[in-house]
């Protein structure tokens, strides 16, 4: 071919990309189900299931009571018995309520049955701050990364929301799929033809040579904005979107850090025992130690107060400052 063939793209909102993935998978596989609060006629808190209830009806899309623990447990049991439930947990903070079923049962099922049973389920939840206060804003994905038997993904674009959700719904074990609340109304291109995004593959969103910036989820937008800001100072950022937190794609990060020689990790959650720290140390195992800065929330709860929330959560100007400081080291 004489020219590079680009896949045909359709523009849609992030929430629509989620809907599309779920709709396609529910159409293909009658074993895919949805369970969660207000997922039925209401279409999900972020309208991410809009229209699905009309198509698939109350047997396959079930509104649940406010009962996160049993909902995840029921999903795990149904998964072990041959179904592929998607459980919607409105806020990641409430995922804690279902940790027992997810972590003590689902994540260990394949192991404890010596491969006899497994729990192919997707727990879809939302992370991050958007004015909802101390108990509705947390990012605890780092905890999940450490659980053997769990896979964890967090898209930042509609295309990845679509492709990762599809992969998640075909996965053989439990997956925690994390959207950030602020992403739902963001638009983007998604491939017109069916396209899966594999787990364990990070994606370089911007090429650069001076510093590697690694993030995931909504903070990718902050990372790209910061890269744009420092570009004006002549600083060139390689910006990597992890997409998948477990498994982690350290090859891509290490390859970039080999080129740039510097790393900045950015996340919205706490940096202590955080995603960035793990990425950095696995990277340095390959590359040897490099100058590195980690950025995350301040070590405090996230208030719904607009001033305090903004102070707590990283933003592009602060990330840009940190990049400049890292370059100046």
């Amino acid at each position, binding site marked *: 071919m004489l020219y590079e063939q680009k896949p045909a793209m359709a523009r849609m909102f992030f929430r629509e990309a989620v809907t599309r993935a779920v709709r396609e998978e529910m159409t293909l596989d009658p074993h895919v189900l949805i369970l969660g609060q207000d997922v039925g006629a*209401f279409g999900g808190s972020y309208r991410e299931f809009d229209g699905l209830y009309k198509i698939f009806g109350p047997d396959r899309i079930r509104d649940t009571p406010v009962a996160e623990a049993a909902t995840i447990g029921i999903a795990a049991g149904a998964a072990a018995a041959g179904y592929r439930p998607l459980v919607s947990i409105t806020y990641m903070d409430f995922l804690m309520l279902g940790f027992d079923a997810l972590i003590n049962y689902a994540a260990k099922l394949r192991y404890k049955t010596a491969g006899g049973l497994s729990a192919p389920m997707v727990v879809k939840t939302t992370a991050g701050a958007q004015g909802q206060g101390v*108990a509705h804003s947390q990012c605890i994905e780092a905890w999940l990364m450490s659980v053997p038997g769990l896979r964890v993904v967090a898209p930042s674009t509609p295309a990845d929301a679509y492709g990762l959700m599809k992969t998640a719904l075909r996965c053989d074990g439990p997956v925690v799929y994390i959207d950030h609340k602020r992403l739902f109304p963001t638009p983007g291109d998604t491939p017109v033809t069916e396209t899966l995004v594999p787990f364990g593959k990070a994606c370089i969103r911007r090429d650069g040579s001076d510093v590697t910036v690694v993030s995931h989820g909504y903070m990718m937008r902050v990372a790209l904005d910061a890269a744009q800001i420092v570009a004006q100072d002549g600083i060139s950022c390689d910006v990597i979107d992890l997409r998948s937190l477990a498994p982690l794609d350290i090859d891509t990060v290490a390859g970039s850090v080999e080129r740039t020689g510097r790393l900045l990790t950015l996340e919205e959650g706490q940096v202590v025992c955080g995603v960035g720290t793990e990425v950095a140390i696995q990277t340095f195992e390959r590359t040897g130690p490099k100058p590195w800065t980690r950025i995350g929330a301040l070590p405090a709860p996230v208030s719904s107060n607009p*001033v305090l929330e903004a102070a707590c959560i990283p933003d592009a100007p602060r990330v840009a400052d940190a990049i400049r400081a890292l370059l100046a080291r």
Partner: protein
Amino acid sequence: MTHIDPVGALRAMLMIRAFEDALARRKEHGFQLLSSGEEAVAVGLVSALGTGDQLLTGGRSIGPALARGVAPERVMAELLGKSGGMNQGRAGRGHMSDPQAGFFGAHAVVGGNISIAAGVAMARQLDGDGGIVAILFGDGACGAGALHETLNMAAQWKLPILFVCNNNQLSVSTARDAALAVANLSDLGATFGMWARTVDGLDVQGVAAAAHDAVRHVRDGLGPAFLECTSIRLRSHSTTARETRSRAELAELQTHCPIRRHAAALQADGTLDDAQLEQMRQDAATDIAHAMAYAEASPYPTAQEALRHVV
């Protein structure tokens, strides 16, 4: 025997409604969880509580806090994120508290507030000072395991706690009947041998009477009680949430408004005439205007405060 001053009850309900209407007009501070349609529950319940008692709630806490006597200007400032709020603007919607006023606090995790309240009741019991605790939660919370665990432990330990379910028949978009396979929600308490009753939560005097009975039972050391008040939610789940009901349904609901109903009763029995009622409405609006002015004059916290009071 009346358990509540009828005119005072109306005044309290009008104040809550005026407060929430004023708040709803402010769009700049995200969403709010309003309790229009549920004023009779808050006001009737609070009429049965004494100064040594504590009230806790779920996220939908404005009406209860105001009924309990928390200063409206401090609530308004809190909900607008201002330093003059009772929690310096950092708790905000769903988390505000004022223990000095007998309002131990809201906690927006559905069901998560219930065991906290039982702990406060355990402290009251150990203190032995006759104080009791009332915990207000929604029908939605009745699906949560935390309720079951707490009901059982409270019954086992005869904690001085009154469980009050404000059954507005909705959890976001989910109808109570679609979520809960129990005949009356108060049956959940009855199973544990508690004093249990279901009353019309749109009737402020009925709520007050039942709450007084329940509080007497609890204060007498006879163990916890479970009072279900069936009410209505006149607004959408939050000020930014999609409304799932039709205009016609909402209009029909308005005819059940507990404030309208109580005002009409007071007019019918000659307690109030039109002018007096109108005056009460205006007084409420004036009070709330003052609260709003206070909140507006109050500054936002500074970014530096984000790290205060963490550990």
